């Protein structure tokens, strides 16, 4: 699957708006620096972090290299444990399967655990159009859903909202979909969380269908692992009699033992805790405990295509911890919405173009949404070389895109490449430039017309030196060997 237009503005356009939103910049700066520091503290505690990281990367790489085998093994294990496995080639197919599974139960509503996969396929919207209400139960997802907003962070989808904005959303919207917010609700996070508990409790106890994703799927045992904090995951996996889990095919790990690596890497990387409050492991159907009707939908949706790219497939190791978002200076300024995808930040910039192709302007702008500073790679718990991937995808973009601007840039780059291919050509170009430099003198250049205005609107530009180093060397060091 490729060539999907997400219908979003390009990254630079969206980021321009975000950068000007002072409230957003403040919310993001505060939140990301808090979580960055927490992560650094708990990672520093472990003297074998780099070894864990190397193992995490190797386990994922190994699994991907035998993904067909592990998928079949997982399917067999889930089936043996009383569950049913479905396969979905793309978003539409996954949505159709889930919709039909909900319909078979006769229910018209479902409670949902936060899941990137179901966001990716737009499941809530698909269910809504089939007359099924899907209630998000993660606090941040609830905020986003109530506000009909979009998530802007993998772990903390409402990171762009502050407490008083959240209070307003709760007061305005809760009544429309169930238990209203108390009239005297303040913006104290304790009170806000209490309001969410109250609002959702009724839904948990009433719901007969739950929809989840999974952080890990163990091929050996058919187990799904759901890592969370609030207990909404436990509620969804325990209370309703029907459970449907949508799981990306890259979520597999070979064996139970492999979790000893990921249950150390994930919480420390994502929430900056030694361990998250709750991790649920579900292995098929258990008589008398939890759902009796259990379905897993294995989702491809562009993943197998990404797998074919030797460099790009690294992105499929991602365990969605969001550490790369929290350290990314671009994410911190632009915010998650600018990436136009459910996967924002550095990992989004390498994942989204692979899942949806680079034919449209918006996805093609994503690999360029980075300074290649490399902070993301340093914190990635599965050592995805994000800067290298970004450059790789930029190359794919220049090869595949054929618009007029792309062709113009290509020609300019070829011309410049030709100049750099030969020192005599470069020398001639420098002599022309230094003539210009003499005109400007050594003062900085103020304002230039487009496209150089993109530099000089906020920054002075240096004038070319009146004499290049090459010219200086020729004058002083060649022939007679004169010293300065």
């Amino acid at each position, binding site marked *: 699957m490729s060539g999907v237009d997400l219908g979003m503005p390009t990254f630079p356009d969206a980021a321009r708006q975000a950068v000007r939103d002072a409230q957003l910049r403040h919310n993001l700066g505060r939140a990301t620096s808090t979580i960055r520091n927490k992560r650094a503290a708990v990672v520093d505690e472990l003297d074998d972090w780099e070894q864990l990281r190397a193992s995490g990367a190797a386990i994922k790489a190994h699994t991907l290299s035998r993904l067909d085998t592990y998928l079949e093994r997982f399917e067999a294990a889930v089936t043996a444990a009383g569950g049913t496995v479905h396969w979905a080639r793309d978003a539409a197919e996954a949505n159709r399967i889930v919709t039909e599974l909900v319909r078979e139960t006769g229910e018209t509503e479902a409670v949902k655990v936060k899941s990137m996969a179901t966001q990716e396929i737009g499941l809530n919207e698909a269910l809504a159009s089939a007359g099924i209400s899907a209630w998000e139960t993660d606090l941040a997802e609830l905020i986003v859903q109530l506000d009909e907003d979009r998530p802007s962070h993998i772990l903390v989808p409402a990171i762009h909202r502050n407490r008083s904005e959240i209070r307003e959303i709760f007061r305005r919207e809760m009544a429309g979909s169930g238990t209203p917010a108390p009239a005297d609700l303040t913006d104290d996070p304790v009170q806000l969380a209490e309001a969410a508990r109250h609002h959702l409790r009724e839904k948990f106890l009433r719901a007969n269908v739950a929809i989840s994703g999974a952080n890990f799927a163990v091929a050996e045992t058919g187990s799904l692992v759901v890592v969370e904090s609030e207990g909404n995951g436990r509620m969804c996996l325990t209370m309703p009699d029907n459970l449907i889990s949508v799981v990306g095919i890259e979520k597999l790990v070979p064996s139970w033992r492999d979790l000893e690596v990921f249950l150390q890497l994930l919480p420390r990387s994502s929430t900056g805790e030694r361990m998250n409050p709750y991790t649920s492991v579900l292995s098929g159907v258990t008589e008398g*405990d939890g759902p009796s009707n259990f379905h897993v939908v294995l989702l491809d949706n562009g993943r197998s295509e990404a797998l074919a790219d030797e460099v790009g497939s690294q992105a499929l190791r991602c365990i969605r911890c969001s550490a790369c978002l929290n350290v990314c200076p671009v994410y911190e300024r632009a915010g998650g919405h600018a990436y136009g995808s459910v996967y924002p930040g550095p990992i989004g910039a390498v994942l989204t173009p692979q899942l949806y192709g680079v034919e449209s302007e918006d996805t093609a702008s994503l690999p360029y949404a980075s300074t290649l500073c490399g902070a993301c790679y340093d914190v990635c718990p599965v050592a995805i070389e994000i800067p290298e991937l970004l450059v790789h995808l930029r190359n794919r973009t220049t090869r595949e895109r054929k618009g007029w601007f792309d062709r113009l840039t290509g020609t300019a780059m070829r011309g410049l490449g030709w100049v750099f291919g030969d020192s005599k050509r470069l020398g001639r170009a420098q002599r022309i430039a230094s003539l210009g430099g003499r005109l400007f003198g050594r003062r900085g250049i103020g304002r230039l017309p487009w496209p150089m205005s993109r530099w000089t609107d906020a920054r002075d530009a240096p004038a070319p030196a009146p004499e290049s180093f090459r010219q200086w060397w020729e004058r002083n060091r060649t022939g007679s060997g004169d010293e300065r």
Partner: protein
Amino acid sequence: MKRSSHDAREAVLGSVRSALAGGQRGSADSIPREYRGRRHVEALPELFRERVAEYRAAVHTTDSAGAPETVLGVLERADARRVVVPEGLPAQWSDPVAERHDTLEDRPRLSTTTLENADAVLTTCTVGIATTGTIVLDHGPGQGRRALTLLPDTHVCLVAASRVVDDVPAALAELDPVGPMTFISGPSATSDIELERVEGVHGPRDLHVVIVGDV
């Protein structure tokens, strides 16, 4: 739908196979595992106590003679009148509670409403993890089905000191995922509002871990 599902299965697996065609297929044996399988910990129960407490669970240390009194004290302070007692909880723990509280047994199965209205639940656990301050329930005897430790507002968990291990690898080696399992590190919490941690969202608001030294 059956039919198209089968097609999808073949299509996804086929697509995966063609993506992998010609590539290196690694062996699981070559995965480096140079991280610590065991972590040196001076005093396991002490670290466990410290780490559990850091996530704002209440920790109590006692021995088997003092445990009933400790549990009763916790229940009293929590003003817990109705206490859920799962099947298989040893009589030495459940009997003293039954003497002073209304105990609710899950046989026949307690209704959701009853669980929702219960004040506390008393369980054991399968293993405790010192480095992370985690208790793990495999929901076997003495731990009950998952809803029992989810709906009541207070969870009191007895942990035998001998069941405390150093870190995650040692814990997983003790566990067999044949049934559901829950790893619990502190009470339910959220950091979704400005990354500020708030305890007590959907799971129990209060977690009491009672470490029994001589069991």
